[in-house]
Structure formats: structure tokens, C-alpha cells
């Protein structure tokens, strides 16, 4: 299966701390994306990293990609209570580039 697997399944931290979530996948990819989902809502795109990129930043977000280990990490720095949500990685396989498949997600809880 192309589907990514996030780790940990759940993460609980205090406001101001950093949160790191990991994603592993099984086959080669075209790109990897991270999404956020607030409870009961649709998903919102956070960041996309291409297979030839190693690191990308967007505000308080930092994403890394290691294609040799088939893994990615999402770091949220100086977390806020409003960051509480589920975070999903999604991968696109080069052979079926349009088919974006998602992992099971990491539930992040940030305590004020």
C-alpha cells in the first residue's frame, strides 16, 4: 500500500513546546503533503515537499523529507492551543501521480 503511516498516533504537549510528527511510506513518491483537520471539519493543506527537496519551512512549520528512509517529519514550533487538531501526511506515487493517499493521522493536543 502507498499509504503513509503517522507516528505517534497521539501527542499531548504544553503551549510553547515544539511538536514533532513523523510519517513513513512504502514506495517511491512524487511529493508528500501535510494536512490539518480540526474536529469534524474538512482538511486544510499545510505544506507540500517534492521528492527532490529535503527541507521546507512555512511560518512555524518545518517539514523534512528523507527519501532513502521513506520518511518525513512535521515540526510545529512554539505550539499554541489553536494548533490542537489531527495532522495527516499524504503521498502521491509517480506512477499514479493524481492519486493522493493519506495516513491514519496524529492527534495533537496542545494544553494552554
Amino acid at each position, binding site marked *: 500500500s502507498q499509504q503513509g503511516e503517522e507516528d505517534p498516533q497521539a501527542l499531548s504537549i504544553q503551549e510553547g513546546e515544539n511538536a514533532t510528527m513523523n510519517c513513513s511510506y512504502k514506495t517511491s513518491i512524487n511529493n508528500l503533503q501535510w494536512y490539518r483537520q480540526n474536529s469534524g471539519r474538512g482538511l486544510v493543506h499545510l505544506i507540500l515537499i517534492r521528492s527532490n527537496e529535503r527541507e521546507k519551512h512555512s511560518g512555524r512549520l518545518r517539514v523534512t523529507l528523507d527519501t532513502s528512509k521513506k520518511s518525513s517529519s512535521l515540526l510545529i514550533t512554539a505550539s499554541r492551543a489553536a494548533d490542537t487538531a489531527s495532522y495527516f501526511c499524504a503521498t502521491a506515487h509517480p506512477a499514479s501521480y493524481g492519486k*493522493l493517499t493519506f495516513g491514519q493521522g496524529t492527534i495533537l493536543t496542545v494544553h494552554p
Partner: protein
Amino acid sequence: GAGVSQSPSNKVTEKGKDVELRCDPISGHTALYWYRQRLGQGLEFLIYFQGNSAPDKSGLPSDRFSAERTGESVSTLTIQRTQQEDSAVYLCASSWLAGAGELFFGEGSRLTVL
């Protein structure tokens, strides 16, 4: 519209009935996706459309599920003879080109089969 619109937002039906879920993508987006999300789970790919090309139906779980899209406009997902295991949130997303970048999601249609 400004975003992806899905209807109905909630649907309760009896086992064995057919249901239709509708998705209105962002204007100009050529790709449209359907996903299923069971409670507390990740997103399960169902189908995607890219322009007038044949859709990728590889995620449809059974022949009770079908989806249509006319051109680059509205799509409907139809579930025939619903079963209790079909209960889930059905999410629609669109993008300007499949595989090219981010997906924009609707708020989902929550289906409950009694």
C-alpha cells in the same frame, strides 16, 4: 463559489436505501476527489476525476458505490443498498490539476445508516 461545497452536510438513512452525495468543486479546478473517513480514522481514497479522462476508481469498495462527474463541474457519489458499515464522513476535494499540488476540501457529508 469560494470553496468546495458538499451537500447534504448530514444524511440519515435506513439500511438498504440508496443515497446521493453532491460535490461542487472550486471553479476552474480540473481534478476532483472523493474520500471516506470513518470515525477516528484516516482518509480512505475512493475515486478521482481529472478533466475528461477516465476516472481512477481503484478505491471504490464495492459495486454499490459509483460516482459521476460531468466535465469539470459537479460530482455525485451514489451508494446503493446502503449498509451500516457505509456510515462515515464522505469528503470531496478539488485541485487545479491532479498531482500538481494541494487539495481543497469540502466540509464533508456525514452519512449515518441505521
